C-alpha cells in the first residue's frame, strides 16, 4: 500500500523497539501519522519494511517518562499486539501521543476508516460485495420457509423491534397479534424468532430476550408464542427454554421487572440455566488472559495459575456447554430450543451460533462461517460498535463477546482437526476485522442503524475480500468428501480440553523464529497433488491425441483402515462401553441419535425433497475417517495394508 493521505505529522529517527511480530533488533525509521494509520517505515534501504496500524486498532496509547535517549511511546492494539517506539525529542512524542489519543477515539462514524477506505472497485462491485453473503439463501438451504416456519412482515421498517432484522421467521401459527403482544413482554421487544432449523429432526433453535415477568407478571400472547414454537415441531410435546445466564443473575433481574419464564405459566417448557457470565466479567477475564499471554518468561506456576485464575477457559467452556446442550436437544432429542439471556444479543448470539457450528457442517466451511456470523451476530443486532469500541463511548459496554465465539470455533477445530475448512488464520483475520473498521460489515449496532448510516453506499463488505484470500485460510486436513456426513460434532468439554489460544493471545513469543508447521506442509502437499492431477489430465490428453485411444484411470484410491471396535481398546484398559471418543454419530451402529426420524415428505414442501434425500443418503452412507473403506477397495486387501 502506498503511503497516502499523509497528514501533518512525521517524525524521523524513530526506533521501533519492539513489534510483537517480526525481528527483535530495534530498527530505525520514520514514523508517520495519517488520517487513518500510524505508519512506521524502516530506514534500511534494502527492506524499507513498513508497519501499518489503523487508528481503530489502537486500544491505548501510553507515554513513558523521557529518558536521555528519548521518549517511549507504547501502542496497545485490539488484536493484542504491542508496539513500542522510541522518539528522540520529547516534544514530538507528546504531539504524537496527543494526536493518537484523539485519532484512536473517533466520536463519529464519519471519522472511521471504512468510510475513507477505497479499494479499487466500482459501484457495481461494491454492491455485489454486499450481496456476497445471502441470508435468505441460507434460510432456504436449511429448508425455511416451509409449512412450519414462515416469514413475517411484522418487523418491516423495524416497527416491532428496532434491533432485529426486518426479515424474520416465526412459527406458522403465530399471528401478528401474538407477535406484537409477545414483543411487548420481552426486553427491547426482542420476541422469539427462528435462528436455525434442523431439517433432520424438524427441531429449531429460536432466540429472544428475557421476558418482562418480574415476580408474577405474565403475558398471554407470549405464552401463545412459546406454544407456537412448540407446535412448529410436530411430534414434540415440550420445548427447552435455555436461559444462558447464571440462575442468580436471572433471579436478580426479576426485581427490575424482568427475569425468566415461570414454568407454572408456560405449559410444556423445560427451563435450563447455563451460567455464562455477563459482559463485565468477560471483559476483565480477557484482560487477565492477555496478561498471561504477555508475561515475559513466566515460571510454570505463573503461567498455569495465571491461566486458571483468569477464568477465561472456564468461560469458553460455559459457552461451548450451552452450544452442546442446544445441539443435543435438537439433534438427539428432536426438541426445539428457545435461547435467551438478558437482551438476547450477546450470550444468546454465542449460544445459538455455537449450536449451529456443532449441528451443521456447512457452518464449518469458510463461506458457512461468514453466513453464520452475518446471521446470528450482524443481522440480529449484536452491538458491534459498542462491544468493540469503534467509537469513543462507555467503556463498560466493551466486551469480547464475538472473540469468545471465535475462540469456541478454534477450540473445536483443535478437537476436530479435520472437520473445519478454515484454519486458525481465518479466525484471527475475522477477529482483527471486527476491530479494524476497515470494512463496513461490522459497523453499527443493528441492521436499522447500518441502513440509516447508508453503509452499503459508503463502505465495503469484508467477506468478498476474505474469500479472495481463502487459499491462505484453508485447513489442509479438512475432509471435504466426508464433511457433509460428519454431522453433529460432540466435543469433549472437560476443562483439560481447553487450551490457551497462543495464536491470538501470545504475540510476544511470535517474535521467535516460527516453528515448523505441519499444516503448511500439508497445504503444499495438497497443492502438489492438485497440480499432479492436472498434469495427469494433460498427459492423458496428449496420449489420447497421440494414440487416438482414450485412456481411463480409476480414481486414485487411498487404502483406509476399517475401524474395529476393539482397536479402540489400546490393549484394553476399559470396556468399550464408554462412548467417549466417538465424535460423530456415525451410521455404524451408533444409536445415540434418539430422535424419531420423521418422514420429510409429510411435513415439508415438495421442492425440498431433493435436499432431503441428499441428506439421508449422506446419513447412511459414510462413517468417520477411520471406518471408511476406500472407493472400490477390497476389505481383505486393506487388512494387509495395516
Amino acid at each position, binding site marked *: 500500500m502506498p503511503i497516502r493521505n499523509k497528514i501533518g505529522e512525521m517524525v524521523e529517527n524513530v526506533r521501533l523497539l519492539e513489534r510483537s511480530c517480526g525481528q527483535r533488533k530495534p530498527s530505525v525509521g520514520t514514523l508517520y501519522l495519517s488520517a487513518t494509520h500510524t505508519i512506521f517505515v524502516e530506514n534500511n534501504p534494502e527492506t524499507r519494511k513498513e508497519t501499518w496500524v489503523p487508528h481503530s486498532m489502537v486500544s491505548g496509547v501510553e507515554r513513558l517518562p523521557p529518558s536521555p535517549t528519548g521518549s517511549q511511546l507504547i501502542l496497545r492494539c485490539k488484536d493484542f499486539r504491542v508496539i513500542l517506539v522510541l522518539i528522540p525529542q520529547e516534544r514530538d512524542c507528546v504531539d504524537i501521543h496527543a494526536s493518537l489519543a484523539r485519532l484512536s477515539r473517533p466520536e463519529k462514524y464519519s471519522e472511521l476508516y471504512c468510510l475513507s477506505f477505497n479499494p479499487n472497485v466500482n459501484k457495481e462491485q461494491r454492491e455485489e460485495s454486499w450481496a456476497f453473503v445471502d441470508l435468505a439463501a441460507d434460510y432456504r438451504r436449511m429448508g425455511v420457509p416451509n409449512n412450519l416456519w414462515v416469514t413475517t412482515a411484522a418487523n418491516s421498517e423495524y416497527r416491532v423491534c428496532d434491533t432485529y432484522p426486518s426479515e424474520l421467521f416465526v412459527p406458522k401459527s403465530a399471528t401478528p397479534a401474538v407477535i406484537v403482544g409477545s414483543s411487548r413482554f420481552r426486553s427491547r421487544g426482542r420476541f422469539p424468532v427462528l435462528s436455525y432449523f434442523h431439517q433432520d429432526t424438524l427441531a429449531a433453535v429460536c432466540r429472544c430476550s428475557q421476558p418482562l415477568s418480574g415476580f408474577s407478571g405474565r403475558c398471554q400472547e407470549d405464552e401463545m408464542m412459546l406454544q407456537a414454537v412448540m407446535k412448529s415441531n410436530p411430534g414434540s410435546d415440550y420445548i427447552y427454554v435455555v436461559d444462558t445466564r447464571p440462575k442468580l443473575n436471572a433471579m436478580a433481574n426479576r426485581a427490575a421487572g424482568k427475569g425468566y419464564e415461570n414454568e407454572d405459566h408456560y405449559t410444556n417448557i423445560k427451563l435450563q440455566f447455563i451460567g455464562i457470565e455477563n459482559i463485565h466479567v468477560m471483559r476483565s477475564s480477557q484482560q487477565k488472559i492477555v496478561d498471561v499471554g504477555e508475561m515475559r518468561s513466566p515460571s*510454570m506456576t505463573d503461567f498455569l495459575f495465571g491461566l486458571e485464575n483468569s477464568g477465561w477457559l472456564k468461560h469458553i467452556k460455559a459457552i461451548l456447554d450451552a452450544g452442546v446442550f442446544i445441539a443435543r436437544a435438537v439433534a438427539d432429542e428432536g426438541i426445539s430450543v428457545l435461547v435467551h439471556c438478558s437482551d438476547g444479543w450477546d450470550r444468546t448470539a454465542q449460544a445459538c451460533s455455537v449450536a449451529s457450528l456443532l449441528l451443521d457442517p456447512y457452518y464449518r466451511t469458510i463461506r458457512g462461517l461468514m453466513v453464520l456470523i452475518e446471521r446470528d451476530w450482524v443481522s440480529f443486532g449484536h452491538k458491534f460498535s459498542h462491544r468493540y469500541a469503534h467509537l469513543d463511548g462507555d467503556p463498560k459496554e466493551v466486551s469480547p463477546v464475538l472473540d469468545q465465539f471465535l475462540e469456541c470455533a478454534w477450540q473445536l477445530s483443535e478437537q476436530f482437526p479435520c*472437520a473445519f475448512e478454515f484454519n486458525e488464520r481465518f479466525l484471527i483475520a475475522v477477529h482483527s476485522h471486527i476491530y479494524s473498521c476497515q470494512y463496513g460489515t461490522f459497523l453499527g449496532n443493528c441492521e436499522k442503524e447500518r441502513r440509516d448510516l447508508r453503509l452499503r453506499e459508503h463502505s465495503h463488505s469484508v467477506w468478498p475480500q476474505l474469500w479472495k484470500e481463502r487459499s491462505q485460510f484453508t485447513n489442509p486436513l479438512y475432509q471435504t468428501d466426508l464433511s457433509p456426513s460428519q454431522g453433529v460434532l460432540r466435543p469433549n468439554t472437560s476443562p483439560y480440553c481447553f487450551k490457551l489460544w497462543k495464536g491470538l493471545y501470545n504475540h510476544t513469543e511470535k517474535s521467535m523464529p516460527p516453528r515448523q508447521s*505441519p499444516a503448511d506442509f500439508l497445504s503444499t502437499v495438497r497443492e502438489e497433488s492438485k497440480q499432479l492431477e492436472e498434469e*495427469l489430465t494433460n498427459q492423458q490428453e*496428449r496420449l489420447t491425441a*497421440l494414440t487416438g485411444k482414450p485412456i481411463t484411470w480409476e480414481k486414485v484410491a487411498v487404502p483406509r483402515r476399517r475401524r*474395529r471396535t476393539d482397536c479402540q481398546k489400546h*490393549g484394553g484398559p476399559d*470396556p468399550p462401553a464408554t462412548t467417549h*471418543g466417538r465424535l460423530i454419530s456415525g451410521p455404524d451402529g451408533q444409536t445415540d441419535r434418539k430422535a424419531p426420524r420423521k418422514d420429510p415428505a409429510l411435513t415439508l414442501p415438495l421442492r425440498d425433497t431433493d435436499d432431503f434425500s441428499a441428506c439421508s443418503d449422506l446419513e447412511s452412507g459414510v462413517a468417520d475417517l477411520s471406518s471408511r473403506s476406500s472407493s472400490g477397495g477390497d476389505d481383505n486387501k486393506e487388512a494387509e495394508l495395516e
Partner: protein
Amino acid sequence: MVSKRLNPRNLPALRYGAQVKMYQVNQVPLLPGETIQTTVKDVMYVCPFSGLVNGTLTITDYKLYFSSVEKESPFILDINMGVISRLESISVPNQGENTKGLELVCKDMRSPRFAYKTEESQVDVVEVISRHAFPLSHNLPLFAFLYKDQFPVDGWKVYDPTAEYRRQGLPNESWTISKINSTYELCDTYPSVLVIPTNITDEDIRRVAVFRAKHRIPVLSWIHPESQATIVRCSQPLVGPSDRRCKEDERLLQIIMDANAQSHKLTIFDARQSSVAVTNKAKDGGYESESFYPNVELNFLDIPNIHVMRESLRKMKEVVYPTINEAHWHSAIDQTHWLEYIRLLLAGAAKIADKLESGKTSVVVHCSDGWDRTSQLTSLAMLMLDSYYRTLRGFQVLVEKEWISFGHKFSARVGHGDENHANSERSPLFVQFIDCVWQMTRQFPAAFEFNELFLITVLDHLYSCLFGTFLYNSEQERVVHEVQTKTISLWSYINSQLEEFTNPFYVDYENHVLYPLVSSRHLELWTSFYARWNPRMRPQVPVHQTLKELLFLRAELQRRVEELQRETTSHSLSSGSEHSPTHPTGTALHTTV
C-alpha cells in the same frame, strides 16, 4: 501394555495400541517361551470408568490376561508383569465374604483392581502374581531370559561404540579410543570403550579415577564436527570439606580445553543446585573450584535429585488416574512441578548445546555420580546438536550410548523384577528424558524420524522385562549375565517394523541445531502418555491417518504422471517432444532453526 497377537507380517504387535484380532475367548495368546501358570474364573475387573466386568483371569509368567464376554464386544485387559510395582489388598464391598480384592499398582500410571472369590480359586492368586511380577525376589529369572522369539534383524548390532565414535570423526590427533577400561577395572559402571585425550598417560587417568566419584572420569561423549568442541561427562570431584586437589584432574581438564583450538575456556555444567553441591562437599564430594582450574567456568543447572522427580510423578498419577482432576486441572498439574522439571532439563540441555554451537567451547557435564541427570543432559544436548540422533537408528544409538553403556542404573531406577517397591533408588529419570524428547518432537514435527508411538513403545518396554535392552545397571553386569546372547533386544522388534514407528513428516535437517522453546507456554503435559488409560483422553480424530492418506495420494499421483510421461515420450519420439514437465519430488517442511 502388550498384546500378543501376530499381525499379518507375522510380527508380534508388542506395543501399546496394537491392533488385536479377536481370539476365541478361552484362548490366551502366548509369546514364544511364555507359559500359563494358572487360570482363575469368575474374576471381576473393577473398571474405574465403567464399573464391574466379569471374566476370566489367566496368569502367565509374562502377563495377566483378563478376558470377558459379558459386553457385546469382548473385553480384554492385558497387563505385563514387569509393569507391576506393588500388590495391594483392597476391600470389595457387597460381594460376599469370600471375595478378595487386589489392586495392581503399576509403574505406568495406572492401578487396575480385581475382585475374586477365594473358595473357587485353588491357588493363591497374590502368590502367583507376586512370583512372576517380582521374579528376582523369588529366585526366578526375568522373563526376557525365557522369551524365545525370532526377528529378522538383530537389535544388539545397533550400537557399536567404535563405529559410533568413527562416525563422529574419532579418533583424531587430540582424542583416542582407549582400552583402559576393557575389563571394567578402572570403572565398573563405565563402558569398556572410552574416548579420552591422547595426551595423558594411563597412570594419570588412574589418579583422576580416584579423585572422581565411583571412578567416573571425564570422557568424551560427543565432538562437534566443525569446532571440535566436545561434550565431556563425568561424576563429581571428591573435593571434600578440606578442598582436596588433584593435579592430574586439573591437567586433564586443561588438556580437554586445549583439544579445542577455537576457545580458551572450558565450561563445567553441574546439574545440581549449588546448595546441594556445597552439601556434597561435607560428604566428601563437591565441585570444581574455579581458582584451581584456570579458565574454567562453573554453572549450576539447579535440577533437583531423583527423589524429587519420583515424588513429582507420583503426584502426577494422582492428577490423571483413575479420574482426572477436572475442577482445577491447571493448578493440579502445576502442583506436581513435573513440567517445571521438564523445563529445567530442556533449558539446561539447550545451554549446553548453545555453548558448543555458538560459544565453540567444550563443556564438562556432571551431577553427583554422573549417571542420572548427566545422562539426561548429555543425551538431550546431543539430540539438539546432531541430526543423526534424530533418526530412528540414531536415537537407538543415543540411548544405548549415553544411557545404557554409561551405566544409568536402569535396574535400580525401574526396579525390574524386585518387590521392594519403596526402594528410594527408584526414579523415573528415563521417562523424564523421553518426555523431553516428546516436547521437542512437538516443537519440531518434521525433525524427528520417529513418531510418538515409538516413544511410548520404548517406555512400555522400559518396564516390561520382555527385552534385555534395559536390564541391569551397567555394561559389566550385562556382560556377566550374557544379556546379548540370552535375551532379545528391543531394537530387534522395533527395527523389524520400522514403518509403524516412522514420522510421515520427517525431513532430515542435517547440520541444524534445534533449540526448543522452553518457555512455560510452550511445554505441554504429555497426556497421550500419562493419561492414556482414561478413555476420555483419546484423540477424537485420527489425524495421522489423514496425513498418511495425503502423502499416499501424492505419491500415487506422481507415479501415474511419471508412467504417462514415459508412455507419452515413447509415443512422441518421432514427433519430438517440446515438453518436459518437472515436478517437485516432495516438499520439505519449511523451518527456520
